[in-house]
């Protein structure tokens, strides 16, 4: 992370906007059904290994690549565009 990046990141946390963006992303992922899809993926993994323990790390390793691929482009675009606009307007002040 570069110095500029760090400052932008710190400002986002300080103003609470990071949390706001996170909430927006969370909302979008629920709306488009992503969360339910990922929940199903997790269930499948757990079912596959019905008789052995499932650890968090194992679940994350198995599900993450597929879950990432499932995020709709429209959601990525919206967030990217909004964060960009937001950071640019912050800079001017």
């Amino acid at each position, binding site marked *: 992370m570069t110095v500029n990046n760090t400052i932008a990141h710190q400002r986002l946390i300080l103003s609470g906007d990071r949390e706001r963006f996170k*909430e927006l992303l969370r909302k979008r992922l629920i709306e488009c059904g992503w969360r339910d899809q990922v929940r199903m993926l997790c269930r499948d993994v757990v079912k596959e290994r019905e008789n052995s323990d499932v650890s968090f790390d194992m679940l994350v390793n198995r599900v993450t690549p597929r879950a990432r691929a499932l995020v709709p482009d429209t959601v990525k675009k919206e967030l990217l565009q909004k964060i960009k606009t937001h950071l640019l307007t912050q800079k001017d002040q």
Partner: protein
Amino acid sequence: MNDNGCIHLSNFKAAKGTNPYKIVHAFFVSCTSFEARRYKATSCLCFACGQPGPRMHSCLHCIYFACYAGHIQEHSKSKKHFLYVDLSYGNVYCTQCQDYIYDRELTEIAMSHRLKEAKSLGISAPFMPWLPNTNEALALRRLRKRRLISPHTTIGLRGLQNLGSTCFMNCIVQTLIHTPLLRDYFLGEKHKCKAQGTGKCLVCEVSKLFQEFYSGAKTPLTLHRLLHLIWTHARHLAGYEQQDAHEFFIATLDVLHRHCMNGVEDTEKKENGRCNCIIDQIFTGGLQSDVVCTSCSGVSTTIDPFWDISLDVAGPGSLQACLERFTRAEHLGSAAKIKCSKCRAYRESTKQLTLETLPIVASFHLKRFEHSSQIDRKISAFVSFPAELDMTPFMSSHRRAVDVGVDNNNAPEGIFEDNRYSLFAVVNHLGSLDAGHYTAYVRQMKGSWFKCDDHMITRASLREVLDSEGYLLFYHKTVLEYECDVS
């Protein structure tokens, strides 16, 4: 992942309580104050490698920050500290068990901090799934019968007998029954009535009606009791001739709103001067009117509550165009001078209407009936309306930002706002002014539309709905925000 905690966490809690978790969580996971955000912004870096990730954790024993790429493991080995709080999600990781540990008490602390954080940032509270309380869990165990809702389910659909030109009532009842939030309110049996059993409360009657619609029976219903109640409480609608569905809709909301107050103590009635009955919570919005004096540019602003928006249909070809025209600044002309409080004189002025607050259900009335001293006529002009509508351009805050201009940018305020609406009911008037008939299209669930023509219910396509003429259009807010309920 263990639902029953682990011995290491239990021992830790027995020795030190939940305070260490509370502090770490309130400062570095869900910041409950500005001060906390300052700490989080500047200090969440791995003490070993200086990086902000991956997956930052804090040692619960000594608040040592370390990332998951080996450094919490290192710290655990050298200090024999086993418990770590994930700084993104607030879960507790145990290096002995090598997994995250669920703990009811800590989960509750985390939830209360998340609510406080949402409140301090002025954002909507996080969604919390419904958990049955002891009584509800008991009832669920006792009542074994379950209903599976599939795309082919027709539950909630029932025809309504025409009692002699009562199609104006039938189409409004169908609309109200299929208003998602109203349905949830009544099926949740939220109406507590003092006048219960007297047969005089319209809200109780509607409550019964919901039970009838969702009972699973398929025969058409007869609404004579409802009609009689409305006749007695809205006398101008009494009689056997055809009435205007829009007038009936507004009168029904008014009677419902008045009767909602039956069961409520005076002290609970109003919140910040606004009624908080279910009708007002769902249907009431605020219409802002700005009158600008052309001589001194002084603005006088008033905000009035509204239940629906009546739109002129002559000219524009779409709902958005109608709304655009509705919210445009209008010069009042020399014939309509208004007293300016600043100039202390009657001046020419411009007036602009915008939406200050949006209701959960936005109802639009297309003014298709023209009554004048010379002629009464129906305007059948085509007005297209969308299935999904964004109301942002018609909001007061948006108009202000546009007027101020881009350099003084207020737009980021709107980034987190969500003013999207989805169509869920359309009332149509067929035929002429004196020999007409009302039907309604209702959305039963997402993507599933039905046409309600008195006792006949038939499946309809969205295309058919959007191609219909449209007299009353009903939109429901697409995403509902949750209110923070923390003191």
